[in-house]
């Protein structure tokens, strides 16, 4: 790790206009694709884990192409922590809510007591809620792993 950082510091790479412009154009589409993978998990390969990794990769790409500070300005550490915690809490919260409403833990059909709907439809919607939770958690963990590992936990300058 130290060797890689040393090499990155001594080798005068500088900023590349081509890479930065390409990344600036690509990142919105990567994030859109990540959201698509999360919400389309019902119908095609994909789901929370895959979509979350794609979303996290878009933040890592910003940090690689620009620098860590630019990435943190777009998506602060605080927001990241809130979203990661919210994701895990959404998953466990939905499961707990099912148990509190008289069903089994993570049996989404028990949620008909909140909004009356076909229990089968609620199972489909419950899967969606849970996938969103997974996606949020995976996205923020991927981004924070890169930030901390690439800057030795100081978040001053990345690789």
């Amino acid at each position, binding site marked *: 790790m130290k060797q890689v950082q040393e090499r990155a510091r001594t080798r005068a790479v500088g900023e590349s206009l081509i890479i930065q412009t390409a990344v600036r154009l690509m990142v919105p589409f990567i994030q859109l694709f990540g959201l698509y993978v999360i919400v389309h998990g019902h*119908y095609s390969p994909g789901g929370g884990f895959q979509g979350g990794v794609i979303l996290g990769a878009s933040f890592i790409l910003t940090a690689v192409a620009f620098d860590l500070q630019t990435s943190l300005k777009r998506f602060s550490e605080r927001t990241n922590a809130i979203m990661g915690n919210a994701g895990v809490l959404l998953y466990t919260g939905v*499961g707990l809510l099912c148990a509190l409403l008289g069903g089994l833990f993570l049996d989404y059909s028990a949620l008909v007591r909140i909004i009356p709907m076909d229990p089968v439809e609620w199972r489909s919607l419950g899967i969606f809620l*849970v996938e969103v939770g997974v996606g949020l958690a995976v996205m923020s963990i991927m981004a*924070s792993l890169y930030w*901390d590992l690439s800057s030795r*936990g100081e978040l001053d300058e990345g690789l």
Partner: protein
Amino acid sequence: MKALALLATLVTGAILLYGTQDFAAWGDPESPPNRHVSRYYITETVKETHVPNIVTAVVADYRGYDTMFETVVIYCAGLVVVSVLRRRES
């Protein structure tokens, strides 16, 4: 010490490889899981959850408890990296 660790790794690996001999043949329709749960998932998933992608339904609904702790494992990994590495600027 390193030789001991290598020996332990090799022995464990050999035991695990020996254990794979008892696995059902790949794609065998008569293996125990294929006769029991797989058939149930294939015939009942769309009726019970309205999700055409059976994999998603199994991962997030039938095996939701497992997926919940997978998420918690990833969360713990992130938490540990932050708590070990993160330095507050003085």
